[in-house]
C-alpha cells in the first residue's frame, strides 16, 4: 500500500524568499514532487499554529513552513518569531506524540531553486514513507 500512497502536503511559503525560490526551481525546470500544494503567505510569521493544525487535522499528510534565512527576512524579524512559534507547536505535538515529524520548517532563499527542490523532494519522500496521517483518518478525532 505504501508504494501506492500519494501524500498530500501543504506548503506555506513566504512571498519574498521561499515562494520566489519555488518559482526559480520551476522556471529552471527542476524536478519537484507534485504532492506539495503551495500556499503563498506574505511572511512565515503570518502562519498561525491554527493553519498548520487545521491542515493536519483536515487531511494533509505533512506541512512545510518555509521562509527566508535568519537575518534575511523582508520584515527583518518575522522568521525569528515564526521559528519560535514553530518550535512551540512542534514541541506540543511531540509531547502529545501526534507525529511531530509531519511538520517541517525550512529556510529557502529566492536564489535557492535547487535547495527548494531538494527540500520538497526529501520531505515528500519522508512523508511517503511515513504513510497516511493518522490524525486525518481517525474517526474519533
Amino acid at each position, binding site marked *: 500500500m505504501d508504494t501506492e500512497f500519494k501524500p498530500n502536503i501543504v506548503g506555506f511559503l513566504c512571498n519574498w524568499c521561499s515562494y520566489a525560490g519555488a518559482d526559480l526551481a520551476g522556471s529552471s525546470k527542476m524536478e519537484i514532487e507534485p504532492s506539495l500544494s503551495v500556499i503563498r503567505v506574505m511572511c512565515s510569521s503570518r502562519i*498561525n*499554529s*491554527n493553519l498548520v*493544525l*487545521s491542515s493536519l*487535522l*483536515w*487531511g494533509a499528510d505533512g506541512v512545510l513552513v518555509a521562509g527566508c*534565512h*535568519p*537575518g*534575511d527576512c523582508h520584515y527583518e*524579524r518575522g522568521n*525569528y*518569531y515564526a*521559528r*519560535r*512559534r*514553530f*518550535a*512551540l*507547536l*512542534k*514541541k*506540543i*505535538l511531540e*509531547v*502529545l*506524540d*501526534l507525529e511531530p515529524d509531519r511538520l*517541517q*520548517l*525550512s*529556510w529557502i*532563499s529566492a*536564489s*535557492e531553486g535547487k*535547495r527548494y527542490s*531538494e*527540500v520538497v523532494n*526529501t*520531505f515528500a519522500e519522508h512523508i511517503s514513507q511515513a504513510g497516511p496521517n*493518522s*490524525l*486525518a*483518518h*481517525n*474517526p*474519533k*478525532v
Partner: protein
Amino acid sequence: MVNGDVKREETPMNSAQDMKNRNSLKGKIVLVDGENRKTIIDLMKQLLEKKCLDAILVPSQVPDTDSYTWLLVQEGSLLDLCDPLPPVMTVQGGKALSSLTKHGEMEANIGALMRPCEIEAVVELHKLKQIDLDHIILFSIDCPGTVPLSDYMRDPQKMAENFKESIKKWGESESLRPICQICDRFSLFPFAPSSPKSSLSQGGADLPASDIHIGLLGGNDEKIFLWPVTQRGKDLLKKLDLSVHDNLEVWESKVEEVREEKLKKRTAFHDEWSTKIKGVDNFAAIFDECINCHNCMEACPVCYCQQCYFDSQLLTLTPEAYLERAQKRGSLRFPLDTLLFHIGRMSHMALSCVSCGACEDACPMSIPVAQVFTAVGDQVQDYFKYVPGREKEESPPLQIFLEDEFGDVETPGDGLETSHGEAKENV
C-alpha cells in the same frame, strides 16, 4: 510609584544549599486578633482609611448566599464581606482585574487581594498588555487550594467544611481540586522557581510579582506574616506604621517544607499524565465528552483575545468540504474540530498557563482540562525556560527571539549544500 524601581536586596540564589545559607526575609509579623480573616480585613480597612488605596478588589461572599464574587470596595465597612481565601474560585482574579483597566490606566490606586495563581495570571495579562499595573498594588496570600466548583455547588456547607479542614492540613485533602493538590506555587518564593531561567527569556531578577505577600503557613492562626516584596509594598506598610524588621524564617521554612511535598506530587503527576496524553487515541479519548461549549476558553484568564479564532466563522466550511472529510475518515464527528480547538488553544496559551484550574472548573462535562493543559504546559514552559507569572518586566516568549536558537527545528540542518552561510553574512 513606578514599577520599574523594584529591587530585591538579596542576590538570587538557586540551590537548596544557597537557600539555607542566605539571610532570611524581613517583614512584619502581625498577631492575629480572633481569626486570620479578620486580621487581614482590618489591614485592608486601614489601607482604605489612611487613603493609601482608593479602592480594593477582594473576593467576597455574596450576603445570605453560598456564592463568592469579586467586590471592588471603596467603603471600608463593606470589607466585612471579604473572604481572603474563599473555598472556591468562581471567577479567576486575573479575569476580574483585567476588566478594570480595559480602557487604559487609572489615576486611582487600586489594591487587589488574590491567590498566587491569580497574581500570576495578572502578570501574564500585564505582559500581554491586557492589564495596566501602574496603579495597582497586588496582595498575594498563601493558598491551600480550592474545592471543585461543581462539588461546592452540589453541597456548599459540606464542601466549605472540607475546605476549612484542608487549610489545617494545608493542601493535604482529597476534597481539593486535583490541580491544587499538585500546586507547588501556593505561596511566593523569594528564589528558586521550579524551573530555572536562562538566556532564552529576558528580564532581570526572578522577582515574584506581588507587592505584599500575606504568609499564613507556620502562623498557626496566631500570627500572619507580611512580606513586602517591592518598594511599593514597603512604603504601604510604612504608612500603616508597620516596621518591617521581623524575621520571617518560620514562614519561610514551613513554605519550603510544603513546597517540597508538593513538588514530589507534581513529579508523580507528570509521570502519570505524560503517558495518558500520548497518542491520538488517548488524547482524543480525554476529550470524547467535549461539547464544544468553549467554557474552558471563556474562563481561562490568559485567553484574552476579543474574538477567538475558534469562535469565528473561519472554521465553517461548505457542505462539500465536510463530505470530503467524512469520506476520508469514514465518518465525521460532530461537534466539529474538537481536537483542533484544544490543541490550537494549547499552542496559543500553554506558555502562559498558570495552572489555576479555572478551565476545569468551568467544564460542564468534567473533562480534566486543567490537568491536561498543565501536563503539556509544564513541558513547553521548560522547553522555553519560561516561568509564567513571575517577573513583570519579562517579555512573553513568543514576542522575543535570539538570532541563534532552536536550530534543531530547522530542516535541513547542516546536511544539504546551501548558501545559508553566505546568506547570513550578507546581512
